[in-house]
């Protein structure tokens, strides 16, 4: 801890800082702006914050020379004051050399409302929540369906998500260089095939052997671990991004800035989920899946080929997970552990909606996504996942069968 404390002391001695004076101009007058929060970060890690004083002055000490990001929190702007360019909330390439006290400017002028309105802020978070929920929904539905037909809580489901994103990356940014939309196709198909392989040659023989469901769960944990290592081996440890649609600018929709690919994600996901719904309701296989999920023995004695249903379920679940992975990678980044990092959120969605249900889980996924993103109104951004985990824990304690699931009878 002494080392940590020493850092800023050393910095002050050296003297690198970033600072400025906030004033807003109106009718030729310069008025200082007090009480605005400025945050200085480096590569995503916050370094320090400062609040402008009565003369509009603020300063943040730095650990040393380098490149920093400086952002102003528009919500702390007083009424009637706004950035002259609302998009310039963050200055992303502020270079500071040794011993420099670097000055930056945030031009302020008269604004109709104080910076970003609550409407815009809430709207943006809602869209972010729907986007996260959209990707979670695709992966979570598969997880739930697998549980429904085989009673397996599959920890390795996360790796299907990762594989979808990674394989798409290989076809897109790697060798063939196809556009992302095209590269997604082999990714989804290959992972669907892998899902079928898993179901047929790993899980089915184990079930035949009579391995207990809990042991299968531990097997899935081992599988998840092994797959993650293999993916890391071939893909590397550093996160990457899809070249297509990178850095897409926001457009104005109903006064809220939205990035088109986020909207596309939500749209694609909803369309696909609707197709899945139709499949489950209308098609013979879909109905068979619901029957096996409800009561396996009954379904079997009604003449349903349970093994075939399970195989189809694996293909469908893997397919959806892979698509979810591509979309998640589109909006965030692709890394060997991306699936694992959202695994617990997948569980949250599944438990909230009901293990074994499909529609409940879809709703649950969107709910989880929205709660996680909205929680940044109160929680620091790095803790937003915690709100999803809290939902998971709370649901398991209060109503483990989920909102739409059926309570299990004893005996």
């Amino acid at each position, binding site marked *: *801890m*002494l*080392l*940590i404390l020493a850092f800023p002391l050393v910095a002050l001695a050296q003297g690198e800082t970033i600072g400025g004076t906030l004033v807003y101009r109106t009718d030729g007058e310069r008025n200082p702006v007090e009480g605005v929060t400025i945050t200085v970060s480096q590569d995503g*890690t*916050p370094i320090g914050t400062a609040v402008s004083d009565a003369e509009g002055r603020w300063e943040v000490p730095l650990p040393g020379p380098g490149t920093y990001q400086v952002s102003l929190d528009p919500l702390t702007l007083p009424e009637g004051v706004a950035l002259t360019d609302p998009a310039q909330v963050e200055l992303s390439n502020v270079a500071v050399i040794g011993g420099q006290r670097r000055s930056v400017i945030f031009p302020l002028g008269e604004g109709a409302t104080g910076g970003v309105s609550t409407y815009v802020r809430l709207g943006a978070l809602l869209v972010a929540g729907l986007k996260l929920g959209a990707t979670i929904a695709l992966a979570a539905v598969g997880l739930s369906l697998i549980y429904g037909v085989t009673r397996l*809580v599959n920890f390795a489901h996360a790796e299907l998500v990762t594989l979808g994103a990674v394989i798409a990356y290989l076809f897109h940014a790697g060798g063939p260089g196809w556009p992302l939309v095209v590269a997604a196709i082999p990714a989804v198909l290959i992972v669907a095939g892998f899902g079928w392989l898993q179901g047929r040659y790993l899980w089915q023989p*184990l079930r035949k*052997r*009579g*391995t*207990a*469901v*809990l*042991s299968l*769960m*531990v*097997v899935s*944990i*081992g*599988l*998840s*671990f*092994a*797959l*993650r*290592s*293999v993916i*890391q*081996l071939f893909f590397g*440890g550093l996160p990457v991004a899809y070249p297509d649609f990178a850095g897409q600018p926001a457009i104005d929709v109903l006064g809220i800035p939205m990035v088109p690919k986020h909207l596309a994600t939500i749209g694609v996901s909803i369309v696909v989920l609707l197709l899945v719904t139709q499949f489950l309701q209308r098609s013979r296989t879909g109905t068979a899946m619901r029957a096996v999920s409800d009561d396996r023995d009954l379904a079997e004695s009604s003449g349903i080929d349970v093994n075939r249903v399970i195989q189809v379920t694996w293909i469908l679940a893997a397919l959806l997970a892979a698509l979810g992975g591509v979309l998640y990678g589109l909006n965030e980044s692709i890394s060997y552990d991306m699936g694992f990092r959202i695994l*617990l959120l997948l*569980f*949250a969605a599944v*438990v909230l909606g009901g293990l074994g249900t499909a529609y409940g889980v879809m709703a649950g996924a969107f709910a989880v996504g929205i709660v996680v993103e909205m929680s940044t109104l109160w929680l*620091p951004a*790095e*803790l937003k*996942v*915690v709100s999803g*985990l*809290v939902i*998971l*824990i709370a649901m*398991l*304690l209060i109503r*483990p069968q989920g909102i739409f699931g059926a309570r299990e009878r004893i005996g």
Partner: protein
Amino acid sequence: MDWTQVLAAGVIATIGPVTAGYALSAIGLNLQFGYAGLLNFGHVAFMLVGAYGTAMTVEFGGPLWLGVIVGVVAAVLLGLLLGIPTLRLRADYFAITSIAAAEVLRLVVRSSWAEPQTGGVFGIQGFATDFHRLNPFPATELYGIGQFVVTGRTLWVIVVGWILVLIATLFVARLIRSPWGRVLKAIREDEDATRSFGKNVFAYKLQALMIGGAIASLAGILFALEQQSIYPGAFEPRITFILYVMVILGGAGSIWGAVLGAAVFNFLFYATDTLMARLQANVDWIGAILSPAEAGLIKYFLVGIALMLLIVYRPQGLLRSRDEGPADAA
């Protein structure tokens, strides 16, 4: 191909502080999982709480011995807090809840919000000086023969660590061989049956969780004292998975299984690591496909495979017979 180097790496790891620490944690997990049948997948949280409890106490000016007490008490409280609402859950729900709770704990400790107390991403350093001051062996002297050498500083940790392992094993053995232990085994076999002859199943499970957690916290403290620093990245779910492999490998529900499992696992783990590193450096075609970092990943892959194979083909591990091994599907 210098096999003695591979062997030496394995042996040193097996007697070293890492194995002692893992053995301690595994003893705790064995009590919870091997004896009581609790699928606690958040076990690493007990180690985190022990380590941070100790370090933060010293941070706030307390003596180290008080820090250790705080760490262990904190783990017992965590067991209580975690167990009371969750122990009545079905086994797979309990598994998910425990892993979620452990992650919440780790993320909160890691956050910049908690940084003033926990050091956030950077963690806490410099709390272990009192411990190393007690070391009777001169810190920089080397002890051992040939390839198998350790410093005096490490030797001290080894001695303390293995003494703790011995005490913990004897303590658990005493509990398990008692009627209390018998009830625990009955609970693992069939909870409803055990209720039907008047035992408060919930209370026993809670006790197993708390005691196992307390022992695991000592492991966290040992690691913290050895490294002289702690950071949240050291307490990820990966640790719990490795502990499960150790417990199952040695023989869940046997007295010495946890220690044996930790020793055998670490021997194979570090020997494989050295082997892969040597192969990568010396064998042309291997060096062509794998970089040094990639070669280092092979051992993790093997851990995952090992867990799968163990559960399916030898769930009773090394020290137990098929009869005593985990029950399979009816």
